[in-house]
């Protein structure tokens, strides 16, 4: 049994957490990494089968699949960022957590089953099957969007690891920063390049189990302190916030003006529609070998994500009630420290170490999932199908996939080192917006619209991507505000920080427009192509009877 030292005083300069906690976190993290790395090496694909590298074990049980989906889906942003948002802004933060779980309804009802039935390794395979005449150009476009989204989100994860380290050490020196990013990035590359999907799946499951158990234990401790009376907890949060009942009413963060209200709506659109279309989440939907298994896996994932989001809400409210809103805001203006402070208060150094180790493993797992999705897209869509035009051998493609993981990892690390001061939420929200406005329209149209053609696909992919990026470049995120990248310049003619409210309709509109206006005969596909595709998508003909 570990003897707990007396509580460390919370001081700004030394970070949130004391030295003992830091050592314990380090030991826990290293043990998890060592164990999962060995396991990843043991279960790594042995032969030259690319299907095993891309999809892993296709006969996993629904519970394990669901855990892996949950692991891919919930990033450290949910654990630290969202709970911090709840702790600082109350109602608005809770609404953000609701959006995170509602996104799964979209996956379950609309996308999952037809995508699995018609898919193979990557999203590009589905699109190539649907639009075979222009399969190279649509694959190229989809790979481009996939790489943009995954690299943005990967950089957000790596920068997030530095932000997490800041909670322990205070402002890290540039050497510590570099070391942290390079260490996490190297681990990610090793998991993916050596372990492929089986390795990534293992770390996702480990992380998901740790996450569910960790938030459950902490939430139980919070609720126990309030005798399981939610009303008391809400009352405690209201008084701990220093602003009373106002804390439990909407508008604390996004209620300043109509613009910021629309900004919140725009963010929720990007979350509800975009999280479902993130490439690494979609790619995991292709793994189960039967439709029924996929459906039950998603039910597990929905249940687990819903549970974690509810528990995160309790943690956020508990942090405000027990630690106090001012203390949290003083240490980190974004509120990322809320959970760690709460853990320190409830369970001392041991719980703090557990939660921080959980946050690091979460970062690592999500980064691994992203790197795998990017490497698959690069190797399968770009190299094997576009550059080598389908003539690459499996062995060759596998080597390229492993190398791609290294390339993506190194690229992510370099970008993270350059942009370490960026607000990670901005990068992540941009990734959601691109997913919702480029990938979602294309996939929905190609699964459900008979007339959809290559012109529409290209226009919605490139159009959705360019619209989202341009709107963010021309928003207060980049210029005109004290907190933006270029505070001195002013080219922010788009008032919202989140482009979703404009770019998602634009993506759908462009896809429709391109399809309707396509005039060249090479743009349209013969009608039996769609009929064959539809039979495949509805029935899932690859399954055993």
């Amino acid at each position, binding site marked *: 049994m570990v003897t707990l030292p007396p509580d460390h005083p919370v001081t700004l300069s030394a970070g949130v957490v004391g030295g003992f906690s830091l050592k314990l976190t380090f030991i826990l993290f290293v043990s998890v990494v060592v164990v999962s790395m060995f396991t990843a090496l043991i279960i790594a694909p042995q032969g030259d089968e690319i299907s095993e590298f891309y999809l892993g074990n296709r006969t996993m049980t629904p519970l394990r699949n669901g855990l892996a989906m949950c692991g891919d889906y919930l990033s450290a942003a949910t654990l630290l960022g969202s709970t911090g948002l709840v702790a600082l802004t109350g109602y608005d933060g809770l609404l953000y957590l609701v959006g995170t779980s*509602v996104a799964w309804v979209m996956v379950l009802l609309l996308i999952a089953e037809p995508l699995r039935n018609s898919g193979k390794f990557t999203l590009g395979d589905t699109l190539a099957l649907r639009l075979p005449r222009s399969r190279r150009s649509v694959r190229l476009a989809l790979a481009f969007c996939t790489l943009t989204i995954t690299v943005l989100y990967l950089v957000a994860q790596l920068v997030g690891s530095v932000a997490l380290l800041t909670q322990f050490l205070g402002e890290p020196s540039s050497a510590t920063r570099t070391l942290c990013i390079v260490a996490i990035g190297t681990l990610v590359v090793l998991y993916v390049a050596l372990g492929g999907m089986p390795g990534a799946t293992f770390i996702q499951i480990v992380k998901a189990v740790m996450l569910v158990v960790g938030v459950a234990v902490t939430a139980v401790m919070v609720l126990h302190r309030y005798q399981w009376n939610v009303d008391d907890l809400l009352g405690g949060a209201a008084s701990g916030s220093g602003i009373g009942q106002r804390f439990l009413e*909407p508008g604390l963060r996004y209620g300043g003006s109509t613009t910021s209200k629309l900004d919140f709506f725009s963010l929720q659109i990007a979350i509800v529609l975009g999280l479902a279309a993130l490439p690494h989440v979609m790619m995991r939907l292709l793994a189960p070998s039967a439709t029924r298994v996929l459906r039950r896996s998603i039910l597990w994932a929905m249940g687990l994500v819903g549970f974690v989001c509810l528990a995160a809400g309790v943690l956020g409210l508990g942090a405000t009630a027990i630690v106090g809103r001012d203390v949290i805001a003083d240490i980190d203006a974004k509120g990322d420290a809320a959970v760690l402070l709460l853990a320190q208060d409830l369970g001392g150094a041991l719980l703090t170490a557990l939660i921080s180790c959980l946050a690091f493993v979460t970062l690592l797992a999500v980064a691994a999932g992203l790197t795998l999705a990017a490497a698959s897209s690069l190797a399968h869509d770009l190299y094997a199908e576009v550059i080598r035009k389908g003539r690459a051998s499996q062995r060759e493609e596998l080597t390229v996939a492993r190398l791609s993981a290294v390339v993506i990892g190194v690229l992510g690390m370099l970008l993270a080192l350059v942009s370490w001061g960026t607000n990670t939420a901005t990068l992540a929200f941009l990734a959601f917006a691109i997913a919702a406005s480029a990938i979602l329209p294309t996939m929905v149209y190609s699964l459900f619209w008979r007339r959809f053609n290559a012109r529409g696909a290209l226009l919605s992919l490139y159009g959705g991507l360019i619209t989202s990026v341009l709107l963010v470049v021309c928003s207060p995120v980049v210029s005109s505000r004290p907190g933006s990248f270029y505070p001195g310049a002013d080219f922010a003619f788009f008032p919202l920080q989140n482009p979703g409210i404009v770019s998602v309709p634009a993506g759908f509109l462009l896809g429709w427009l391109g399809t309707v206006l396509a005039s060249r005969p090479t743009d349209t596909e013969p009608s039996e192509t769609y009929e*064959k595709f539809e039979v495949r998508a509805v029935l899932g003909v690859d399954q055993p009877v």
Partner: protein
Amino acid sequence: MPLELHSYLIRHGMPQHPSPYYGSPPDSTQSGPVARNKIGSHPDFRSVRGAHRRFGAVALAISVGGFLLFVLLSSFLPDVLNRPLFGHVTLGLAGGVGQFAVMALTAWRYTVHMERRVDPAADRLRAEMHRDAAARARVPQQQRRFGGW
């Protein structure tokens, strides 16, 4: 080698096409399109497709549309949602938890719907397709044998 292939098939559970295809669907042989088109215009297939899409559209409008409406209500009509229910719980907080209930209800109804209305017919059609494909695969072999004689 047969043992290896056998264990591969068991692990991957896709006995139709163990080798990956590139760019074209796995069974786009000469006889493929005919069978697909026959199934594609089968009334059972149309009802399966319709049952899946109609339910999806309605459920999506209720749960995702309902959530986005709730976000708009919170932003623009806060007075309605701030009405206290009991203690510190307001209509808005109860609505937020209600979203989880709606989500669970949607998932449950979807599963029941798919298991009752879609899966049996889809299984039947799939079995029919596999039978057709197997029958067609047998015919040329027999012809060849006859030709040999």
